[in-house]
């Protein structure tokens, strides 16, 4: 069974730099109209946490869903 992940984004801290969108291997994230990162395709997330580690604003949290 494949694992499921939850992509939490603190939009108050996100500045819309798009680094997370560039590093995501599964193209999970995209920019919203308000220039904030939003998880558009959460079901594709493989939990590599590259976006979490690269986020300069510490706005992304990846959690495994039980």
């Amino acid at each position, binding site marked *: 069974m494949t694992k499921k992940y939850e992509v939490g984004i603190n939009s*108050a*801290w*996100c*500045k*819309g*730099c*798009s*680094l997370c*969108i*560039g*590093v995501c291997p599964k193209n999970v994230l995209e920019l919203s109209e308000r220039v904030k990162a939003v998880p558009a395709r959460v079901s594709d997330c493989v939990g590599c946490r590259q976006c*979490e*580690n*690269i*986020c*300069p*604003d*510490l*706005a*992304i*949290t990846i959690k495994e869903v039980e």
Partner: protein
Amino acid sequence: MPGTEVLSWLRTRFMPHIWCPGCGHGVIMHALVRALVNLGKDRAQTVVASGIGCSSRMAGYINACTVHSTHGRSLAFATGIKLHKPELTVVDVMGDGDCSAIGGNHFIHACRRNIDITAIIMNNNIYGMTGGQASPTTPVGAWASTTPYGAVDPSFDLCKLAEGAGASYVARTTIANPKQAENCIMNAIRKKGFSVVEVVTHCHTQFGRKNNRRQPIDNYNFFKEATVPLAKANEMKPEELVGKLVCGEFVNKDVPEYTEQYGKVIEAARRGC
């Protein structure tokens, strides 16, 4: 993370931080906090010292014992703190200009003395806060506001400088590999002696904008392509390594540490011999 443990190390009331969107300093701050959490450090026993510059704002965001000191002299402050209380974990965060230009003398003598401080150098090739002037690490040919026709003077290799000055741990990593940065910082904090971690980062606002790396992700991709692991670099010719970033642990040696040696001097003096 940033789980509750990472967030407990941050002064969240000051967030979102002052750095530009996509600034690599935030990536380094996250790596540093993760390293401190992984090592199980106590916030009351950890000191983060910084000088002046964009990089030095980091001390304001980390919720430990912090000191925001004068330009280039953060190592002098950190040395004083460490000598007074050798049991503390002292981390010194510096920019490239802070470390190698204004504080160059403090840096080489801290390396020579081999005092147990971890120096994290955020090398963004430029003085970002003051308007993009050329720093000692600006690559030859790169645009800076004081070198509009390209920098002509050769740049510093901070790792070789630290190695030559006698640091006991020297490593280089980039923000394109935050996990390696975290591991290098962890090893550096564990090391008894002066440890230098050069984290190559970007200033897309002042440097990248004029050097064909306008977006943060362009800088990320540039670092990813330019990075050469140390083991591979040893097999390559010097002309192949031009413009590349050799990353890895350059030095990891055990040499007598300053506070221990100084403690012995104090004991000997008290005994009166």
